[in-house]
């Protein structure tokens, strides 16, 4: 395959970035998207140019590190995959591919396609856990969880924290991410004791960090590589209302 790439290059957080055009030839359709970028970087190094910086690690769609905005979509044109699991067979010979970093104010660019997502960690630190110390746990089967709720909790817990939901949202809302964690615990008996505190604190932090609100376009759900459902947002809203009212 022959490709034209338009890639966002930005020296550091303070510099002004711009698109730079590169062309690549002889790309196998079985190559993954990130392997295609590896090939580009090898060429750039050969020409004494700085390679394109992008975040990636596990390359099997689970660590949540890769964060590329490809042709106007987080993680690119395939559904339910991260950029590392996207393969070049989803493109056509001669295509022009535009690659940008996540675009959201709470995720500032560090360099090129790499962004700072520590805002997500800060939200989790407000209550994305059950406060139990090591060693004090009771026998596991003393806590029974119905299969239906346990499956729903797992659906929500499958979130990889990549930030595609924020990147897809015109308001840069983090509600899908935050609601997935809140839902996981709201659906489990272990999560009930701290439920009110959890939702209030996490939502407050989310607002403080500059994430926008939800205006129900559901772009987040459409672009989520792990198919996290928007019904989690509804559940979070209900939890939030209950916590505020009662």
């Amino acid at each position, binding site marked *: 395959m022959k490709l034209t790439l338009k890639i966002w290059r930005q020296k550091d957080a303070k510099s002004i970035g711009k698109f730079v055009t590169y062309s690549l030839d002889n790309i196998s359709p079985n190559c993954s998207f990130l392997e295609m970028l590896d090939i580009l970087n090898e060429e750039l190094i050969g020409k004494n140019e700085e390679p394109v910086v992008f975040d990636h690690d596990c390359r099997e769609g689970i660590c949540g590190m890769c964060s590329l905005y490809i042709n106007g979509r987080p993680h690119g044109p395939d559904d339910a995959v991260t950029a590392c699991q996207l393969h070049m067979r989803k493109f056509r010979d001669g295509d022009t591919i535009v690659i940008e970093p996540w675009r959201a104010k709470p995720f500032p660019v560090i360099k090129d396609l790499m962004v700072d997502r520590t805002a997500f960690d800060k939200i989790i630190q407000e209550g994305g856990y059950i406060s139990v110390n090591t060693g004090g746990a009771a026998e596991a089967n003393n806590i029974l969880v119905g299969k239906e709720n*346990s499956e729903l909790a797992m659906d929500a817990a499958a979130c990889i924290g990549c930030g595609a939901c924020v990147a897809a949202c015109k308001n840069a809302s983090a509600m899908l991410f935050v609601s997935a964690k809140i839902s996981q615990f709201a659906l489990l008996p272990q999560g009930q004791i701290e439920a009110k505190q959890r939702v209030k604190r996490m939502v407050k932090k989310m607002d403080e960090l500059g994430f926008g609100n939800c205006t129900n376009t559901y772009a987040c759900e459409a672009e989520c590589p792990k198919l996290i459902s928007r019904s989690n947002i509804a559940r979070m809203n209900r939890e939030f209302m209950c916590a505020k009212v009662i």
Partner: protein
Amino acid sequence: MAELNSKIPKGPLTSKWTHYKDHQNLVNPSNKRKLDIIIVGTGLAGSAAAASLGEMGFNVKIFCYQDSPRRAHSIAAQGGINAAKNYPNDGDSIYRLFYDTIKGGDYRAREANVYRLAEVSNNIIDQCVAQGVPFAREYGGSLENRSFGGAQVSRTFFARGQTGQQLLLGAYGALSRQIKLGTVKLYERHEMMDVVIVDGKARGIIARDLITGKLERHFGHAVVVATGGYGNVFYLSTNAMGSNTSAIWQIFKKGAWFANPCFTQIHPTCIPVHGDYQSKLTLMSESLRNDGRIWVPKRKEDAEAHRHGKLKANDIAEENRDYFLERRYPAFGNLVPRDVASRAAKERCDAGYGVGSTGLAVFLDFRESIGRLGKNVIEERYGNLFQMYEKIVDENPYENPMMIYPAVHYTMGGTWVDYELQTSVTGLFAAGEANFSDHGANRLGASALMQGLADGYFVLPYTIQNYLAGEIRVARMSTDKAEFAEAEKAVQSRLEKLIAVKGSRSVDHFHKELGKIMWEYVGMARNEAGLKKAIELIKKLRAEFWKDVKIPGDMNALNVELEKANRVADFLELGELLAYDALNRNESCGGHFREEYQTEEGECKRNDDDYKYVAAWEYVSEGEFRLHKEELAYEEIEVKQRIYK
């Protein structure tokens, strides 16, 4: 010089750990606040240890190279975590889990460590459930189990095919809580460059801020390395791209011995290699072997036709299929341990029965189980794995059998530690995959998560306290001390040296070359001539690397190529040690298979008279290592040939 003392407590096996805990030294709450602990790595072992030690009241600093602790590669573990709960009432017990782990490790692990691991396994499940980890459940609400390789009971707890993710997020939650409470300070996008030793004790690290490129000095009364395994020495592996050996290699050079480096695990069920641009291999969980049957064509002409795309797997009649694991190992069938399954697949492919375009693949077939259980049951059990396979290979595994081949996955070897997880350097500890302690020559499926969390939640928080109780009079040291300055200077000059090479070939070029040497001569089957050749080739490649590597950019800023170069420089040294160790071990056991030492049926031939020891290597100088032997004494278990027939 340090001596090899495993510090195994006296007394009967079943009460050693209890006895240890009853008699160990403790630190009172007001002193805990005055003690600093550095933890490197945020996987299961690192995060769990940091959270637990923070809860206890110590001051913890934790470091990871990723942008968040939640990215650590424990997240990618799929299948499950073992525990001896015996919920299915199938005869499991702590002893059985202990026995299976020792046997699975081909009698090359320490009895006392493994027994402790089995003992705390049940606490791990309790802890994780309390944290809200969404394990799979039965309709009645209790926890569900499944079976895994190397065991005849169902003792594996799981959260779909994402068990590692859910356990890591549990530990990450506990860690996040302590960060909020201020007991733990997180340094993300930081890489440990070296350990600092003051008067013979580990007292801190030199870390590099990967964004600014600045070197930082950090003090700790104790240092814990929990940085995972070294599988990426093979370049292609199931590890994450950033997984590296640098932390355990730097401490090795400072006196922390490296044990059993040749014990590497090749996982049987990975998606086969497809091109030279390939950057990593993807694992398909071992749990698939519960319902999938592994086979190759019985007739060479069928295999040949499949390789050329002239014959489809589904068109090969039942009687022309060779279910070689079921044939060779009727008692365990498709659930033999990983090393056995991998070698059996290699044997068939080498004999000309391999399938797929390269001939280096075997089938993993779900047709029978889909027929028996229905597609929806298979989808519920393995849905995400099937989806992942389809995305990568572009073929529907519900309709066509998967094609799989073994790949480098896990490293049983690692930093030598005693019963307290302390290395041969005082005050320096190693936890999780980074240490060598519990899996012997081969790790059983679903035991890595168990060991990572055992070390992090239930072992290290006790044993490190025993050490720190003797350090309460040591005040926090200034990092202006000469030892810190010297360590920083050494790191600085190494990075300057790397940048200054300004050669003609990229870091990846050298890493790929190293990988080829390792896979060819130090991979699934090894022999004396090949290992000697590998050592020569690695030495040559290392010399070339330092003369010809090309790193664009500068060192005082974000520089991904420099990060990679620093890691590959260490792999180029470790590869040589791995080959030395494989050459030294004149036997086959577990993941280490020497062609000269096999039975007539092609099984491992162990040599217990001469090699029933842990090989702990001491660094002398580049390319020169000194061997220390820790003899393994088996008091509870009778050492036998490992048979799964």
